[in-house]
């Protein structure tokens, strides 16, 4: 064996890096065995991925891989995602970022939010940053064994929004609730480990794995001082509790014959959470005896899967699948005497740990009539049993079919449709004060439902260098037994893609998508007296379209590639109310929800030498939006809710990005 591992070093100098792809280095053969030693390093300082309103451009990802084929692999990944800060946010509180928010020393409590002087508010940056580092090692025996270990840590820090309320009167609870939007500290750490054993032979593969995940919140609670004249002095809310998850899985497949394969899986996991409780209230006089000091929460999540897939004949393929999923919530049930928003007790409540068992059966067939025509038919049956739910048993049947025509080498058309029905047992609402609800309500996630799907796709290749593809898909959900709640929900998506290879060096591509989504629901303001029937309706219509155009030119000059990408997306949301509460129909409409994004990128890649590559990009992007939930509202605009003063998101960026990559 004569392994001559070339020494490799990679130096990357980055100035405002963007869009730098993985590049192999140190690729080296062992000429006797075919074993190669390889390594790669990639770094992207993210702009390109940040094409949305909720992500900032300040992101990166570093990835390093080394290995030797069929012997070992090792990798290291580090990345960061930053969310885009909310615009114009302000808060009254001091010590922002800690788990104790205090009012200014000279603060005088107010009865109404309008009485707060905006000058008393200080700017606060509401966003989070997630950093992740992970490493993995895989050892391969060469005789079928493989062992992998990967471990990672996520750290998320920053601030997010949290509504916080105080009650001041139990007779008219909500009318007298006063609230404030707080900057909630985020300081989360999640550690993950996976240990995986693989064994494979010609006829079978086995995989056994152990997974451990631990979540740690460095802030157990958040306390805040009451800025209002009424209510408790201080409120305390719990933040997401520390928790752990352990899971063991065993998966295997076996070839019964050349045509038939069987796959089986078994998985068992346990989620645990036992963080000490906070007291019922921040007011000692309201605190009673807790039934236990912590939840001792425990949920088992188990799964069994079995699949047989057979190429029954040259023309017919059959698949049969069964899967069992279980969420077995063993959390102790106890009766609590909660305090309503730090004001007074409002009755005894027993927690309702949610569990389910789900069985899924799936039979599918594909028949190839000839080279031009093939059919798919699939039948799926779900059987669900739930505990502590309004609908404890349900079944759902779904039949789908697809026809695929290869009309000629230039034309392909596929048509598909599916129809399903979900039927549940009697809908039995809970009866405690918090959840006593209109008897005509059917929660859409458990309600009886009819579902229809239709799809058509067309691919046309008029020449070797031109591809045109279009598709249209419609999904309709109907809830026939629902009087109060969601009545129907339709989604229609249409797209057209074109790719034109003008010559060996120039490629032109583009796409356009259009999505229409609409739903209607009903409510009853009159419940429980004088009527339980619907007396208001809401129709929501969301429209979205996106358009992309790109031109890439290779070797414009020796070693120089250039390109341009343009993206435009726009959404519009309409909310139409039909109010019958007065006996006559009054139709009104919210202002449209609007978002508008435009992005243009010009880039060039230049290979100075086999070892040195540079990339230069000029980027311009613009985003604006209009949202009635924020527009025209100052922090102190509402009587009983102190807002953050947030504005609809908008931004405009222009920057130059430069990348240089060197290998030696």
């Amino acid at each position, binding site marked *: 064996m004569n392994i001559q591992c070339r020494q490799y070093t990679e130096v990357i100098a980055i100035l405002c890096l963007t869009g730098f792809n993985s590049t192999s280095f140190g690729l080296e053969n062992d000429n006797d*065995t075919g074993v190669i030693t390889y390594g790669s390093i990639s770094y992207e300082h993210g702009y390109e991925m940040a094409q949305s309103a909720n992500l900032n451009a300040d992101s990166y990802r570093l990835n390093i891989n080394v290995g030797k084929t069929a012997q070992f692999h090792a990798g290291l990944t580090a990345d960061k995602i930053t969310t885009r800060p909310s615009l114009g946010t302000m808060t009254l509180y001091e010590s922002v970022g800690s788990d104790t928010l205090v009012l200014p020393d000279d603060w005088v409590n107010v009865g109404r939010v309008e009485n707060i002087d905006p000058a008393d508010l200080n700017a606060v940056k509401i966003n989070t940053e997630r950093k992740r580092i992970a490493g993995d090692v895989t050892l391969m025996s060469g005789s079928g064994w493989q062992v992998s270990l990967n471990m990672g840590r996520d750290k998320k820090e920053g601030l997010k929004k949290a509504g916080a309320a105080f009650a001041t009167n139990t007779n008219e609870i909500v009318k007298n609730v006063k609230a404030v939007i707080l900057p909630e500290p985020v300081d989360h750490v999640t550690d993950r480990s996976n240990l995986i054993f*693989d064994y494979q032979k010609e006829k079978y593969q086995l995989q056994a794995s152990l997974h451990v995940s631990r979540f740690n919140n460095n802030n157990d609670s958040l306390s805040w001082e009451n800025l209002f004249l009424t209510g408790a002095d201080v409120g305390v809310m719990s933040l997401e509790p520390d928790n752990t998850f352990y899971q063991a899985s065993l998966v295997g497949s076996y070839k019964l014959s050349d045509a038939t394969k069987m796959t089986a899986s078994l998985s068992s996991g346990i989620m645990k959470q036992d963080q000490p409780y906070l007291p*019922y209230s921040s007011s000692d006089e309201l605190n009673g005896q807790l039934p236990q000091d912590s939840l001792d929460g425990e949920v088992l999540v188990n799964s069994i899967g079995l699949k047989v897939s057979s190429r029954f004949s040259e023309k017919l393929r059959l698949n049969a699948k069964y899967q069992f999923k279980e969420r077995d919530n063993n959390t102790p049930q106890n009766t609590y005497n909660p305090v309503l928003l730090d004001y007074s007790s409002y009755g005894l409540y027993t927690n309702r740990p949610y569990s389910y068992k789900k069985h899924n059966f799936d039979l599918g067939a594909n028949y190839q009539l000839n080279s031009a025509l093939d059919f798919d038919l699939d039948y799926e049956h779900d059987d669900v049993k739930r505990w502590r739910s309004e609908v404890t048993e349900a079944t759902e049947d779904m039949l789908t079919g697809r026809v695929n025509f290869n009309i000629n080498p230039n034309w392909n058309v596929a048509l598909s449709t599916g129809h399903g029905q979900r039927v549940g047992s009697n809908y039995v609402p809970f009866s405690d004060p918090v959840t006593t609800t209109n008897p005509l309500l059917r929660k859409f*996630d458990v309600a009886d439902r009819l579902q229809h799907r239709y799809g058509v796709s067309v691919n046309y290749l008029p020449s070797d260098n031109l591809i045109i593809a279009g598709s249209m898909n419609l999904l309709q959900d109907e809830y026939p037994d629902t009087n109060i709640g969601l009545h129907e929900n339709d989604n229609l998506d249409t797209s057209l893609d074109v790719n034109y290879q003008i010559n060996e060096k120039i490629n032109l591509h583009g796409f356009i998508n259009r*999505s229409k989504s609409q739903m209607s629901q009903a409510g009853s303001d009159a419940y429980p007296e004088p009527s339980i029937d619907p007396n208001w309706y809401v129709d929501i219509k969301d429209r979205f379209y996106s358009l992309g155009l790109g031109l890439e030119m290779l070797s414009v000059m020796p070693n120089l590639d250039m390109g341009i990408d343009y993206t435009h997306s726009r959404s519009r949301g309409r909310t139409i109310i039909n109010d019958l509460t007065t006996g006559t129909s009054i139709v009104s409409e919210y202002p449209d929800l609007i*978002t508008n994004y435009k992005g243009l990128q010009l880039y060039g890649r230049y290979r100075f030498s086999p070892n040195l590559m540079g990339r230069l990009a000029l980027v311009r992007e613009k985003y604006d939006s209009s949202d009635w939930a924020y527009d025209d509202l100052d922090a102190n605009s509402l009587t009983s809710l102190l807002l953050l003063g947030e504005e609809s998101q908008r931004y405009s960026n222009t920057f130059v990005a430069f990348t240089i990559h060197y290998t030696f």
Partner: protein
Amino acid sequence: MRERVIKQFSLFSILFFVSLGLYAQAKDEAFDFELEVLTKDDCRLCHSGQAVAYFSSLHGQSENAVHENPIKQCETCHGEFYAHIKSRGESLDGVVSFANKNGTFLERNQRCMNCHEDSRRMHWQGSMHETSSMDCSSCHKIHGKDAVLARNEESKVCFSCHQKIRADLHKPSSHPSGEVMSCRDCHNSHGSTGDKLLRHFDVNLVCYECHANLRGPFLWEHPPASDNCLTCHEAHGSSHYSMLKRRAPFLCQQCHQNEVGSRHVRRVMDLDALAEVGEGRFIAAGSCMNCHSKVHGSNHPSGVGLSR
């Protein structure tokens, strides 16, 4: 005279058959030489572009060392070439061509599975992509750079069929698409134990990998959140904040029309309410979450209304 004619005929015949034999031998040698040239100097005489790209790929680097005879590299995936060469490229008999898609997709895929049917692909047969008659080469490019292997290029390959997902990822509230987050973080395109080719048998377990803070279990659960995150959220992107399917209060009112609380839950939330003194808090900013901020569950003993 007769003997002379016989001798001349015999000599002619001998010369004819010898010439014929020599010609045949020469022709065979010429063909063998041609074949030899092809086998030794490989398929790149006709397929130079593919060959150059192949030798720059991981496959090419590896196979080059394994097989002394380069044609064996091509035969590993493309089958027997004799008829193809003998017909000077006109016949594809015995050849598995991924570009021309001769034979069945099963035959083509089996060429890949001969080496790659390991635990990562044990669910391939009968998976959503396999039952859609997809080739491995539908996504993978063997000759040259395989874009689907690069995180920031992978999604572009997926979008060529999944245009709706591309549209969703362009929406204002969406998961990032590119190097930092890629399709493979949630899906295994070669098959899995879960729906939608998810990496776990349950969608919530996929979400909890990054959102472990929402895993609980909580004292006061919000059952739809414990059951399926996709009850309220879109997986890829939405026009509404937090990737919600609809925005509050309307999304919440699809399930909550409670008696408690001075009818605030079940009231008609028209725009007048926003301007109404004391009522705007039900609609502005986070709407219901202005008070019920622990919407995924609360571990506070007084958090039964998800407000603590």
